[in-house]
């Protein structure tokens, strides 16, 4: 029960933040990325504020030693800077630039009821499933992409 409450509340606050941040508007995102054009720095403020809160908050939270309602922190263990990380980031960045949506804002934008957003999210989920399947059977992947 507490799991559902934690998810709902944190997801809700995260979504509110996305709505206010400008990230749910692809034209704002793309003009932030357009450093050679009419550059709009607004998203720097989102990242700056978000990182300041998270840096401070994480420090306090990790200082407690364990989360309030869970026996331990569940953190990524991989430290490798490898091919999947870099190629994934490049692929992700190209998609982000093309459409101006990253995963959170795309989900939030479903509320507009626009067919384009539903199709975008369907394509995104398909991409995630495709990679998850390939990683579950590494033989299907080119050398080096199966790890991490």
């Amino acid at each position, binding site marked *: 029960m507490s*799991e559902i409450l*934690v*998810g*709902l*509340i*944190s997801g*809700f*606050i*995260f*979504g*509110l*933040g*996305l*709505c*206010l*941040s*400008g990230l749910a508007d*692809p*034209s704002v995102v*793309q003009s932030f990325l357009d450093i*050679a054009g009419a550059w709009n720095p607004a998203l720097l403020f989102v990242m700056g*504020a*978000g990182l300041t*809160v*998270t*840096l401070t*908050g*994480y420090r306090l*939270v990790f200082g407690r030693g*364990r989360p*309030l*309602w*869970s026996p331990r922190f569940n953190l990524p263990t*991989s*430290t*490798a*800077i490898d091919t*999947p*990380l*870099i190629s*994934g*980031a*490049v*692929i*992700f*960045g190209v*998609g*982000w630039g*093309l459409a101006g*949506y990253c*995963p959170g804002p795309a*989900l*939030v934008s*479903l509320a507009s009821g626009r067919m*384009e957003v539903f*199709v*975008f999210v369907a*394509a*995104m989920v398909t991409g*995630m499933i495709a990679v998850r399947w390939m990683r579950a059977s590494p033989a299907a992947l080119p050398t080096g992409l199966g790890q991490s």
Partner: protein
Amino acid sequence: MHPFLSAVIGGILIGFSVVLLMFLSGRIAGISGIVGGLLPPKLADDWRLRLAFIAGLLLSPLILKAIAGFNGIGAPTVGFAILIPAGFLIGAGSALGNGCTSGHGICGLARLSPRSAVATVTFMAAAVVTVFVMRHVI
């Protein structure tokens, strides 16, 4: 509200949510990771938390709209011919690179993870180059 002020408030809310999730359940608030754990081939053990997070995320613009009269959602800037491949790319790329703007760009950087720093710089650069090519080359 000035767009920069609203951006700061948005960033604070995102940061607060990320910290809250870590404080209460010890988890990273990375959207692609949260969604990924609900997809085949394997449903994550903590699927209830993930599903509830997505539900909260989906509800937020509806409630904001009902209370404040706006929700900040803009119109797509490109048509289906770009949206479909772009959607596939952000899905595949975030799954392959183990994170997106939130997981690497906020949570990972705040944990001072070198992996996330490399990923963030890389996807930012790729996105800037992509927009440059779209707007100034083609």
